[in-house]
């Protein structure tokens, strides 16, 4: 046999086979035609049975990696996709027995052949296989599906094997990839879904759509009773929906592909005359002959079970949502029963009975469609070995299926009752709680003799499971109700005032704590209500809030003052909350009032303080930041202003000193003015900077113990020369034994220099200045008294503000920036001291400094 190089080309190929069933089969079709079959067990091509040819045609047309293992020895015939997968191995595989072709998997295939040829379908998920696609072996995860192919007699003659890349891997990779590959993966998933589970495959061809090939699952799906192989589709499945027939024709003759997910198909599936609906995943691909569509390949997967399970979950969710939404127990049970009744086509009637607390009888639970007289009659039936279906089921703790009430001994005592209501069959199943105790029974009644199917049993199982949830939920609610009884006990021991009121707001209960607090008897309290004890300012708004809560049914929270028996109004925080029944109707209100006076005095106050402090801290931090920025600005700008003035000072001083030669008197005069003017500018800068420094929160005092007398003497001495110029004399005669001060020496010096300077500046020549120190209990008072121009009353306060200069008869002769007294005040404040001024215009001023001891 010539060595053929396999290609990865899919179905379409240039090769045109002269052999009918190989037409359009791609590269593999040619290889099959050219293969020396005469030497093979299968014999020459011409001798092959039609069903083998159809099977081959089917696999050659499949895009999936598909291999046909024919006969017990599994002669391998496969398609292009499989050939590509087999890679280098491909050359030896065609026509070989699978045990020879793939010796490493001989045991595996022997098992597969044995099982599938016996009619089974075998699936292996996530198998690790080697692909020979490339030079090096490549490990791949594969899903393998093997199903039988039937001959004309319905016997398996071959195995069709499909190799799929593991779904998880595909999906995971496709998520990383584009939408397109995601779509492909979804399609792959669909394929995979029916290939993995026993999927039905069939090929129908020709104008009358005759079944050419049917696999076993397909046959089983359509019912063992139907004869399919070799039959025309419309004869074999005559009850098919016309719409489906139309679709089948379009696929078969117009070459359209058809795909449907969970398509409901109603047929007499079981060939017993009853129509049922199955949900199918359905793929129909045109079957090509001579490049013309002439039939179809159908892949069918039965999704009925999945769809039903999902619907059940949905139903159950709806029931649970009802419960969660506050629907009553009875309403929810009725809903459940009606759901199951509507889903059945047999006219069933559902009933739920509930186990009594002592476990001896069954009480009415639900039966929305059963006659009321019947329900009354069975309400309270005993749990026992022979009490109809329900009493017996509860007794046996097992389902009891009575398909004919008229003849069943269990119904002896109830036969007439059932007959009177035309009930012919009754199946009852116990409802088990989570701890396996019997909560009740669920029964299905029929108006004719009826035997349960597997499907019925499934529905029953669903209802009992759901009913158990509902009943247990309701029991939990009962427990809750019982707990309300415990409430009073608690209410009477808790240290808060508790009340209950009816839906209209009428008080129904006060706990004894109310009497204790108000000093009034319960009788008076019930008559007068809470309002009597409310602070008049709180009463109206509190009652309005209460009324609003009653009207809207929303919980209330409030605060008001209540009068205690000793006449003290104490603050209370009040809560009220509505209690509702199963229908959401308000049945009562529960309220509490808690005395928070003591708490407010301590904890709350502390908290409020903390909140306030935190707020202040934050505010302060912002101010500090702002202030720091400002200080920084002033410091740096002062520095910048000083630099050129410094240079001016140096140069003028050098010139004035004759460094650059002698000066004329005019030059000397002019430059002296320039020099002084520059000096004044530097002074202003110094003053501004000093102000900024004093204002700055970073300004720190270097405190030390010092004698005020010393400080004052130093300051007076420093001022002496300028005082002498004006002929002014300072008298200072301090008392002995003055205590020491804790203060900053240079700052105090600045204070008194400024005060003495002012006293001098705003006084006439030859006037007297007096400095007096007085010891007060907790402070030292230093008075600086002058006989100067004095200060008008209206300026009294302003003089301590920044940049204040008061106009008076001497102010023209005085230079200054108006900052001195500001510094004085600030520095004294930093020391915890103060300054005030007493002044009489034209008579003089008395500045009194107080420094704490």
């Amino acid at each position, binding site marked *: 046999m010539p060595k053929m190089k396999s290609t990865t080309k899919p179905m379409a190929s240039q090769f045109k086979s002269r052999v009918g069933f190989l037409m359009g089969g791609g590269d593999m079709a040619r290889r099959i035609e050219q293969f020396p079959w005469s030497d093979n067990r299968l014999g020459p091509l011409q001798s092959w049975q039609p069903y083998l040819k159809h099977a081959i045609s089917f696999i050659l047309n499949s895009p999936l990696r598909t291999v046909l293992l024919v006969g017990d020895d599994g002669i391998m015939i496969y398609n292009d996709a499989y050939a590509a997968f087999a890679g280098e191995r491909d050359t030896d595989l065609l026509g070989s027995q699978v045990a020879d072709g793939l010796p490493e998997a001989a045991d595996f295939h022997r098992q597969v052949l044995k099982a599938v040829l016996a009619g089974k379908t075998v699936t292996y998920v996530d198998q690790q296989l080697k692909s020979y696609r490339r030079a090096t072996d490549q490990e791949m995860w594969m899903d393998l599906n093997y199903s039988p192919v039937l001959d004309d007699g319905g016997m398996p003659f071959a195995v069709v094997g499909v190799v799929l890349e593991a779904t998880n891997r595909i999906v995971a990779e496709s998520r990383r990839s584009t939408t397109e590959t995601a779509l492909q993966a979804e399609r792959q998933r669909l394929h995979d879904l029916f290939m993995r589970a026993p999927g039905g495959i069939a090929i129908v061809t020709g104008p009358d759509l005759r079944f050419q090939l049917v696999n076993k699952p397909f046959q089983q799906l359509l019912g063992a009773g139907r004869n399919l192989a070799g039959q025309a589709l419309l004869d074999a499945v005559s009850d098919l929906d016309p719409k489906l027939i139309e679709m089948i024709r379009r696929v078969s003759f117009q070459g359209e592909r058809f795909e449907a997910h969970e398509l409901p198909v109603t047929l007499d599936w079981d060939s017993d005359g009853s129509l049922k609906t199955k949900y199918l995943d359905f793929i129909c691909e045109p079957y090509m002959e001579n490049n013309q569509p002439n039939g179809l390949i159908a892949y069918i997967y039965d999704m009925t079970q999945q769809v039903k399970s999902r619907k059940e979950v949905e139903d159950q969710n709806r029931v649970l949502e009802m419960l969660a939404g506050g629907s009553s127990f009875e309403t929810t049970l009725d809903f459940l029963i009606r759901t199951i009744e509507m889903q059945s086509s047999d006219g069933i009637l559902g009933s739920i009975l509930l186990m009594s607390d002592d476990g001896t009888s069954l009480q009415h639970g639900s039966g929305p469609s059963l006659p009321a007289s019947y329900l009354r009659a069975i309400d309270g039936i005993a749990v026992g070995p022979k009490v109809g279906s329900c009493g017996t089921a509860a007794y046996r703790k097992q389902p009891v299926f009575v398909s004919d009430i008229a003849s069943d001994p269990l119904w002896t005592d109830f036969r007439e009752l059932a007959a009177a209501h035309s009930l012919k069959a009754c199946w009852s199943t116990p409802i088990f709680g989570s701890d396996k105790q019997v909560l009740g029974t669920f029964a299905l009644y029929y108006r004719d003799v009826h035997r349960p199917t597997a499907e019925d049993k499934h529905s029953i199982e669903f209802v009992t499971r759901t009913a158990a949830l509902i009943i247990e939920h309701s029991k939990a609610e009962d427990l809750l109700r019982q707990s309300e009884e415990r409430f009073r006990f608690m209410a009477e021991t808790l240290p808060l005032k508790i009340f209950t009121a009816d839906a209209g707001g009428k008080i129904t209960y006060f706990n004894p704590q109310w009497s204790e607090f108000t000093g009034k008897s319960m009788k008076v309290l019930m008559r007068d209500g809470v309002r009597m004890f409310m602070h008049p300012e709180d009463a109206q708004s509190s009652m309005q809030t209460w009324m609003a809560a009653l009207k809207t049914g929303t919980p209330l929270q409030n605060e008001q003052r209540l009068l205690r028996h000793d006449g003290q109004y104490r603050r209370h925080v009040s809560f009220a909350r509505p209690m509702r029944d199963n229908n959401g109707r308000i049945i009562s209100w529960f309220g509490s009032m808690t005395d928070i006076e003591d708490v407010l005095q301590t904890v709350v106050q502390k908290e409020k303080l903390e909140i306030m402090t935190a707020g202040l801290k934050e505010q302060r931090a912002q101010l500090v930041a702002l202030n720091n920025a400002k200080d920084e600005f002033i410091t740096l700008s002062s*520095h910048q202003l000083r*630099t*050129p003035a*410094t*240079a001016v000072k140096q140069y003028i001083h*050098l010139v004035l*000193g004759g460094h650059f030669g002698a000066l004329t008197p005019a030059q000397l005069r002019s430059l002296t003015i320039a020099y002084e003017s520059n000096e004044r500018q530097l002074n202003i800068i110094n003053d501004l900077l000093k102000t900024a420094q004093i204002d700055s929160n970073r300004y*720190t005092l270097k405190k030390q113990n010092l004698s005020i007398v010393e400080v004052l003497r130093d300051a007076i001495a420093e001022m002496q020369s300028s005082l002498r110029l004006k002929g002014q004399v300072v008298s200072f005669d301090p008392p002995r034994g003055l205590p020491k001060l804790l203060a900053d020496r240079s700052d105090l010096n600045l204070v008194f220099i400024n005060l003495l300077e002012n006293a001098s500046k705003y006084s006439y020549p030859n006037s007297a200045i007096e400095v007096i120190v007085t010891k007060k209990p907790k402070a030292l008072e230093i008075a600086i008294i002058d006989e100067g121009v004095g200060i008008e009353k209206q300026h009294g306060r302003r003089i301590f503000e920044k940049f204040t200069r008061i106009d008076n008869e001497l102010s023209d002769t005085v230079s200054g920036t108006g900052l001195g007294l500001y510094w004085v005040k600030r520095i004294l404040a930093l020391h915890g001291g103060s300054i005030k001024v007493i002044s009489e215009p034209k008579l003089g001023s008395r500045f009194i400094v107080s420094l704490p001891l």
Partner: protein
Amino acid sequence: MKTATVLIIEDEQILQDVYSLILGSKGYTVAVAENGAEGLTKMRAVKPDLILLDVLMPVMDGKEFLKNFDASEFPYTKIIAYTNLSDRQTQQEMVELGAMECVLKSSMTPEDLLNLVGQVLETGHKHKNRP
């Protein structure tokens, strides 16, 4: 007698000029550095007897200069910090970092400066904090 050498570390050119002029007029050898970093570099070549050190300068300020200045390498070099920053903290810090004095530039006349330089050179003290 060899005249004393003064290194002026100062970023303002007008002040470099005028202080060079004042000190030069009294016979001091004057060298100038633009900032602390340049000052450190020039130390080896200049071997100053005294440094006039500004505080606020770009690249490396006076404080950083004092922190990086190796007093053991120049045990006889004295440092006068001078600045137009008049806050207490700056002046205190400069003295703590090793300057013998920290004076306010704008308060000094040329005579004041010459007196100060003369006094500091005369005292013969080593670097203040590194005996």
